[in-house]
């Protein structure tokens, strides 16, 4: 039956209305978790606040389990949904550029939009920078980026199939890794913040 819009069970208007309400949930939760505070975000790289890692992995694993079960029991056709194609070279290079953006700017696009909406001036500037960056990329696409962006094409690759294990086992292992990470970062955070009060 699912996904409902791509299989024409719901119409365009309802689909866009749902987009708005799903966005409200996403934005509300990002703000409520503290993702509009750039210092809390940067904390993941310096050991004084691991909220990014905790929220991020909890969300990804919850979604991975849910989508796997929906697909496994035949409630959702995974072929009908947005499935990112893998181009490993530009994703690696682009990801590394984004790492610089994250460390220097203290946001990613989603968190900067939330923070800008709540009045954080540094976030408004970040969003402005991101839009200028996209303009720059767009106007230099042919000369600088096009070949790189098309390189390393692998098509739609499922990581579990790529490794050669079942999807269920992969999700289980990912959950175990996340649980260990949650435990370890909690200890690290306690040690770092006991030496110094970061007054977040």
């Amino acid at each position, binding site marked *: 039956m699912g996904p409902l819009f791509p299989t024409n069970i719901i119409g365009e208007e309802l689909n866009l209305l749902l987009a708005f309400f799903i966005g409200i949930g996403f934005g509300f939760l990002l703000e409520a978790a503290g993702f509009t505070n750039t210092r809390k975000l940067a904390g993941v790289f310096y050991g004084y606040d691991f909220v990014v890692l905790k929220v991020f992995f909890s969300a990804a694993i919850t979604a991975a389990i849910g989508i796997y079960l929906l697909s496994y029991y035949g409630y959702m056709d995974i072929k009908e949904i947005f499935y990112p194609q893998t181009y490993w070279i530009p994703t690696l290079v682009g990801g590394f550029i984004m790492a610089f953006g994250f460390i220097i700017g203290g946001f*990613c696009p989603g968190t900067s939009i939330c923070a800008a909406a709540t009045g954080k001036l540094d976030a408004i500037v970040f969003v402005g920078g991101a839009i200028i960056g996209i303009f720059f990329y767009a106007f230099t696409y042919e000369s600088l980026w096009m070949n790189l962006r098309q390189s390393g094409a692998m098509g739609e690759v499922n990581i579990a199939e790529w490794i050669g294990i079942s999807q269920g086992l992969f999700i289980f292992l990912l959950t175990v890794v996340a649980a260990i990470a949650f435990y370890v970062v909690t200890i690290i955070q306690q040690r770092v913040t006991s030496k110094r009060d970061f007054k977040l």
Partner: protein
Amino acid sequence: MDRSKKYMNPYLAGFLIGLFMIAAYFFSGEGLGASGALKTTVVAATDVVAHDYAKEAEFFKRYVSSPDSVPIKTWLIFEVLGVIAGAILSAAIFGRLGSEIVKPPHITNKTRLIAAASGGLLFGIGSQLGRGCTSGMVMSGMSVLSLSGFIGLIAIFGGGYLIAYFFRKLWI
């Protein structure tokens, strides 16, 4: 502790974001994104101001020139409008609405704003090259077990840890 410092339990927030991610895929077949909406804005603005350029230029033409144009992601625009409304709602409830520059005490406002603008610029470029950002590529990609999402995860966060030392003065 004042009300503005009260944050939701991170595991609960993550679990609930995961449920919204499932809903996005189940109802609309879409992941949660952010940079895609910014790209759509850039494409639309360029198309309005310089349609003749846009329909020929390699980056824009697949979005704006019919008949072989890719439909622009209207869904993401509505989703991001929701994100804005949701963030304002939460900030209003918890008393965090208001104009301010968030930064560590030892950094000047000017330094923080220059760093934020530079970081945004790099993130804008990186998200286009990498086919999406932390939400639309990494988190959504991981949710459907796409290899791409995990490569992005390693590049963004692994890369972040590699270079964090050199930018520590901005934060600690």
